[in-house]
């Protein structure tokens, strides 16, 4: 008989919208054998941005008055989001140094919302097999279209407020999400074979926890500013810092 382990997984992900952390979770959903957290170390990092942030392009949202009304100063495409020298929407993951899997699955889905005809957050991460919940908070038609290369894609019509769930079975960084109805809408999903990933919040901060002691390579990805890597060493129960710096 398969044993179901209920084990706390210490994984917090700073989301694009505001750097709030994901909740602590207990594994073992759906009858799957859960995997214990591999360790107690964490990486607490920040993504800096130096120089003048490029202006984000304006969006002509005239065709969707309900969405356009949400933007007092007119809607712009948040390609590069910088506040006080900190860069949001950077996808950070561990690319080497981890012990062999299996890895603990985050118990709650990653969530992406369509709100005001933009994706919130713009960048999310999911573990292979983890649910990605796609919400439509707009009272109008969006289609959410994933265009992966290693995974099967999808293209879902969401004619009004509703929610859909999908998952990916192969690691792929990044899977673009698009809306054909609103050509300006763009989001990215990082699909990783383990749960050690995070997205920098509005304060540039990100946290990756539940790691065993070791030395890891971190890769930081931004949609237009490219990728950077760095090595970080963490001790059991400890927390190491990591600082990335992008610039224009």
């Amino acid at each position, binding site marked *: 008989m398969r044993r179901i382990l209920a084990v706390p997984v210490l994984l917090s992900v700073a989301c694009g919208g505001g750097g709030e952390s994901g909740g602590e979770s207990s594994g073992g959903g759906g009858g799957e054998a859960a995997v214990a957290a591999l360790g107690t170390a964490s990486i607490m990092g920040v993504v800096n941005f130096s120089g003048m942030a490029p202006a984000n392009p304006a969006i002509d949202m005239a065709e969707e008055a309900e969405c356009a009304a949400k933007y007092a100063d007119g809607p712009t495409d948040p390609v590069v989001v910088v506040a006080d020298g900190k860069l949001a929407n950077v996808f950070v993951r561990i690319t080497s140094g981890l012990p062999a899997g299996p890895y603990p699955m985050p118990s709650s889905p990653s969530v992406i919302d369509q709100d005001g005809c933009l994706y919130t957050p713009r960048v999310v991460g999911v573990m292979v097999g983890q649910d990605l919940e796609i919400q439509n908070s707009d009272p109008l038609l969006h289609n959410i279209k994933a265009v992966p290369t290693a995974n099967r894609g999808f293209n879902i019509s969401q*004619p009004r407020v509703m929610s859909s769930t999908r998952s990916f079975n192969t690691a792929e960084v990044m899977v673009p999400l698009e809306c054909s109805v609103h050509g300006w809408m763009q989001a990215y999903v990082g699909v990783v074979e383990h749960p050690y990933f995070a997205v920098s919040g509005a304060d540039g901060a990100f946290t990756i926890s539940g790691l065993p002691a070791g030395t890891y390579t971190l890769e930081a990805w931004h949609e237009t500013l490219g990728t950077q890597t760095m090595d970080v060493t963490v001790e059991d129960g400890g927390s190491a810092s990591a600082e990335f710096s992008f610039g224009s």
Partner: protein
Amino acid sequence: MTNHGRLQVAACRLSAASTILLAFVAGLPGVLRAQDLENGKALYDKWCAGCHGMTGQGDGPAADYMLPRPRDFTFAIYQIRTTSNGELPTDDDLRYIVDNGMPGSTMPGWKDKLGPGDRDDVVAYIKSFSRFFEDGQPEPVAVARAPRVTDEGLAEGRRLFEEEVECIKCHGAEGRGDGGSAPELTDDDGFPIRAANLTENWTFNGGGSVEDILMRIRVGVDGTPMPSNGDAIDAGIITEEQLWRVAQYVRSLSPDAPPRRQDVVRAAFVEGDLPNGPEDPAWNDVEALYIPMVGQILEAPRWFAPAVDGLWVRALHNGEGMALQFSWDDASASPDEAWDPFFDGVVTSMVAPDAPHLEAQGPDHLAVQFPLTPPEGTVLPYFLAGDARNPVYQIRWRSNPDMAEEGTATGLGTFASGTGSDLTHGAAFANGRWQVQFTRSLTASDPGVAASFTPGESMPMAFYVADGTNAEDDVRGAVSAWYAVYLDVPLPPRVFIAPVVATLLTAGLGLVVVIQAQRRST
């Protein structure tokens, strides 16, 4: 057990056995005949690789001249499926496309060219280009039975099309692919793609029946912007019955049957005034001839991906003058800024054969041509703007600035404008459709510039259409073969009066006979 009972059991066993046997025999060819990858490869290399490429990446030598481009088999993303969105197609789905082609593209059907076993082998080989098929294939989606088509159902379908499922956003108010989001649509590879023109169901990829349409709406058209509505059904946003209503409404946007092939458009005789513009309701009662249009691929600069696939032609005359009305589907009145993304996509994704692409959208074009002088015997001018010995008379229209002119030509690119008649024109664009009318006297004022038309005679007629948004101009566009217009002979009044006179005479004589007979008998 009674004899009767035994008999029943025996009969039952026999029937079960024969069912199994039948099933076995029916399945036998499939069982015995393993799909032959080697044969599939040989056929693929010969017939398919020119477009789809030797390695199945959709990059054959012809690919750069096509839009939509040939499928890249390595991703195993297929538009026409009966399986859920994002899933692999079934073998039957693949075989359907190999058999029937993709009418909205350059992909032909192979039903008449390759045997059924060969087509199975090609399907097997195509699957071998992608690792995704190694995991097995899914089952088709089960769909609820269709409700009966009713007027209320169609009205509901229209409401859903416009307001709930919002098909209108890409496909447009009347379904001609001219919705607000249409100009920026791209396929998964970033190439421009058109929202289907829903008024021509004979061009639908995957078939034009209500059932075909329902399936496309239900599971989506993968690789394109067309999404699946499966999640909306699961979420209770719309019901399966409502989806059927949408499919029935979409089907109703096309004629019951595809247009019949005909060679002659009849210009009926009307008393008095001809219609005073392309939108004059008088045209509604006039029979239209459908002219299929194909790319001008014979003379440089050639064009392999024309936007306009057909043209409807109507004609009337009143003994003095003649009016021709043309109607064709074009998602934009070019040039239209909103369609710049589509234009840019066309010029960047396709190789311009023979000459550089246009730098910006030009106007839309229409031309109709006739032999300058009635042909002797069966000799017609060359269908592409005539030839040196057989000049043509052309009436040409462009959308911006809106103008029509007439003149002669002795080959492509030799048009000489002139004045040979009292030609006037009108043009109107609405909901993804152009309507243009040419009106002129039957008799040319200058026979060196314009042809004359005679009631009771037919005149050869050929067409040219171009869509500026599709990077087309007055030689890169769609052409037709020769057709003809026949001007009805007005019937002389005696045709109508004679029967009445005859009837009256007969009745009168009969009355006389009866009266005389009655007199005699009294």
